[in-house]
């Protein structure tokens, strides 16, 4: 992937007022009461408009997010991160936003890097910009257990086999999705685990949308445990194999 000098500075403090005008930061959250407040406060401090999609949390996530000043929409029942995101996309379109930045509620992502995602989006006119943890592996401080690293590399290979494009971090949850891809994802999205990331990448690439990656540093998890254990990873990978081999991944209209 290409890399531009103006994007290289990780604490690029571009005045975000222009960018924040039509950009919505969507934060899917399921039982993230400990971190979501801080995440929203930081984002709002930097001038971003945030939407927290509370995905049927049983804790104080909704209250904490509201207190911090986010717009909150709540699923009454937990539907999974994919559908929570899709709700965010639908909300964004209803309120005339043309770009959505997906951001984690657990504090893994750095709000200072949002400007870089958006700059890359403008520079490459990309429909999807992925913040990759592995694009610049020498400068990465992100620690990942062995099996997860291997799984991510495998997913990357499958994407290459299917689309002939290289995505170094196919499961990254730090992305910028812009129109017209946003509308496609609002209509069609996957509810499966890995569907929101891995499958969405394939869907966008197969339909001819431009996908760019930039390197972004991420913090190691502040709170809670990673969503997949070793056995689960194996199971999910098995599912991904079948879905990819039989071409069952979700589809969107061509650009």
């Amino acid at each position, binding site marked *: 992937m290409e890399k531009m000098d103006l994007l290289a500075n990780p604490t690029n403090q571009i005045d975000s007022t222009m960018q924040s005008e039509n950009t919505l930061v969507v934060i899917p959250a399921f039982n993230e009461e400990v971190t979501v407040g801080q995440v929203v406060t930081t984002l709002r401090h930097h001038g971003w408009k945030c939407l927290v999609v509370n995905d049927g949390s049983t804790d104080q996530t909704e209250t904490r997010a509201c207190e911090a*000043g*986010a*717009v909150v929409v709540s699923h009454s029942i937990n539907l999974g991160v994919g559908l929570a995101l899709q709700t965010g996309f639908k909300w964004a379109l209803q309120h005339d936003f043309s770009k959505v930045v997906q951001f984690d509620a657990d504090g893994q992502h750095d709000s200072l890097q949002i400007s870089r995602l958006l700059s890359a989006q403008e520079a490459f006119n990309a429909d999807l910009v992925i913040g990759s943890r592995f694009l610049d592996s020498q400068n990465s401080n992100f620690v990942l257990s062995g099996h997860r690293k291997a799984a991510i590399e495998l997913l990357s290979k499958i994407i290459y086999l299917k689309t002939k494009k290289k995505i170094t971090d196919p499961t990254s949850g730090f992305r910028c999705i812009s129109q017209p891809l946003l509308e496609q994802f609002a209509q069609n999205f996957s509810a499966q685990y890995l569907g929101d990331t891995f499958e969405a990448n394939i869907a966008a690439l197969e339909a001819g949308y431009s996908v760019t990656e930039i390197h972004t540093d991420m913090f190691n998890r502040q709170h809670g445990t990673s969503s997949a254990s070793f056995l689960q990873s194996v199971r999910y990978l098995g599912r991904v194999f079948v879905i990819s081999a039989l071409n069952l991944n979700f589809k969107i209209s061509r650009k």
Partner: protein
Amino acid sequence: MKTTLQQSLLLITGGLSLIVASWIASRRRLLTVRYTLGWITLGIITCVASIFTSFLPSVGEFLGMSPTGFLLVLASLVLVIVCFQLSVALSVLQIKFHSLIQEIALNGKDGSVSKSNESD
């Protein structure tokens, strides 16, 4: 010959029970009309098919099965078809359910809370 007669009676009993059971369930609103009609049709087919049990030995023999075995295969096949249809119905419901939860989320709160964002 005696065996096929017994099997015919058994099949008719099964078919009639199915019709009666689905009729009762429908009256108690435990089944929608769509599924009631499906099960009643299946009951009628079973009853009608029971007349033709005399064919069972020859067809079974042709396929290398005993008459009872052949009947069992037929029954299993029907069950597989029903299960598959149920999976399809369930999937459709699941998708509708997901959209419904999203719709409620989008329509429920946005007006009142979004003001907090506009004030900055």
